[in-house]
């Protein structure tokens, strides 16, 4: 068993309900470095594996503020400082005219930060990942549900983990080589 390094032990389930129940039990049993995989978003799953910290909204807010502030300042600096042009006697700092571009820049930066932030926090793009070594894992993007206990978990002992996962009634169990 010790010859090839093991990334974790993975159990396969038939339905979202089974996976959520199994993930809850695994978390309750004290395993912390675990993850679950499903072919569509399952609301209850993140909570079941003990994942709460979600920084995507904060990243989006920061992006939107950067976009809005820089958009307005850019227009102010261009129209009132660096390149003042008298248009029909309007003030150089004619702020109502600057609202539209400020708004668009807020949305643009907020949106870009939301998408790139989500990808960065998820660690994507990541073309190679050990879970892809399990042939059955190809079904995770179709109709199967997977639960993994990583070998980095403090409580991890290969025999015990396997036994524990088997007690959850999975469809199959595989070792994930790293």
């Amino acid at each position, binding site marked *: 068993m010790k010859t090839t390094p093991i990334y974790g032990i993975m159990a396969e389930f038939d339905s979202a309900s089974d996976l959520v129940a199994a993930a809850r039990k695994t978390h309750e049993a004290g395993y912390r470095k675990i993850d679950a995989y499903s072919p569509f978003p399952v609301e209850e799953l993140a909570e079941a594996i003990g994942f709460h910290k979600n920084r995507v909204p904060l990243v989006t807010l920061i992006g939107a503020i950067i976009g809005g502030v820089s958009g307005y300042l850019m227009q102010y600096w261009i129209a009132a400082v660096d390149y003042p042009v008298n248009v029909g006697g309007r003030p150089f700092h004619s702020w109502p005219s600057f609202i539209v571009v400020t708004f668009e820049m807020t*949305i643009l930066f907020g949106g870009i930060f939301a998408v790139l932030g989500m990808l960065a926090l998820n660690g994507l793009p990541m073309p190679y990942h050990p879970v892809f070594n399990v042939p059955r894992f190809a079904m995770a993007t179709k109709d199967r549900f997977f639960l993994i206990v990583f070998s980095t978990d403090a409580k991890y002992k290969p025999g015990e983990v396997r036994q524990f996962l088997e007690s959850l009634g999975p469809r199959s169990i595989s070792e994930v080589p790293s």
Partner: protein
Amino acid sequence: MAERMDEVTVANKQAPVIEPGYTFGTVTDKISTIVLNRPTSTGWFVGFGVAFMLTMMMLFAIGYLVVKGTGIWGINIPIGWGFAIVNFVWWIGIGHAGTLISAILLLLRQSWRNSINRFAEAMTLFAVAAAGIFPLIHTGRPWLAYWLFPYPNTMNYWPQFRSPLLWDVFAVSTYFTISLLFWFVGLIPDLATLRDRSENRWAQMIYGTLAMGWRGSARHWHRYETMYLLLAGLATPLVLSVHTVVSFDFAIAIVPGWHTTIFPPYFVAGAIYSGFAMVLMLAIPIRTLYGLQDFITDRHLQNSAKVMLATGWIVAYGYGIEAFMGWYSGNRNDSFLLWNRLHGPYAFFYFLLLLCNIGIPQVLWIRKLRTNTVALFFVSLVILVGMWLERFVIVVMSLHRDFLNSSWGMYYPTRWDWMTYIGTIGMFLAAMFLFVRILPMISIFEMRTLLPEAEVKPE
């Protein structure tokens, strides 16, 4: 997450959002097979070929324009904004339905959107791309179009931020960028499905690269869902702002018929009106040709028809207010504009517009016609023509007779105008043909969430 189909169906006695009997596996197979296994039909090649030839015609027309200048078009003073602006507004309006379906209906938890959002978003992208061509070539020197963006340059010049035309540059480019992001991140989980289901090495590599290693982790899904909702929340005010800004191009000017406060809401409603018409014109043939009636059901067609009825009446209200203000304002130029619409040289197009946008679409009140795909297809076509005429009326009829009789004129499009316009339709269709062939046209993972088995049962 979404309303499940059984509750909806039972509660409303309506056609279901997805026909019963599907599982995660069969939904996945049915949609991904179209891309991965189904042989490309002759009809596809013929359709794509025609659309591609029209695209080439557009490129030829644009090439000649670059060589000769905008004089090859029918535009001249006083009508400097001919087909180019008419088509720009028409195309960008069509795009709006895609964002409405994908963002606003998501926030409103309208789960029926899940089967039409993907191709409606693709439609948005291609429509905005087609729209973007027109202002670009209308500048006459498209190779200098980057001057519109504020960048430090040796000419010591900056763009004029008090001009609605510059607002438009920001609105349209932001709209395109956000629509592209929305569409692409929506595709990521499905690209992973295609990566895992494809047997072709090249397809695996390409879909795999685009999927960026998506593996459906619960942590990833959680952040993904948050991001998707936030993006929808950002896209909602954006889509309403884009056509508002487009209407500012007119409303900020003092030309009679343009200088009105009704323009922003009336433009946005018109945009959604024409956009849903285009969604139906695409959905009806696609679902028949690819046998997707189980996913794009009569419910979707009915709902789209109802949206068209509602937005059609907002548009009708806009026409009514325009006419009312022509009379009530007591302004000679505004009254003349109304008279000119009813009796002037372009009166035929004004009456045709009323017929196409207000008259004929009223048949959608009849339930039987809302479920009749052929009727729905033709009503949609009529609405698209009507919305094009609306922009023609606004652009050309307002410009051709403004304040001074001495500066009146007429506008007649030339063959180059027509070639460019029809060419962009070809480009749009060619892109749609490629899209349905190489990408899943229905969001697979969102369809899975609609199935009853997606529900997590409490222990």
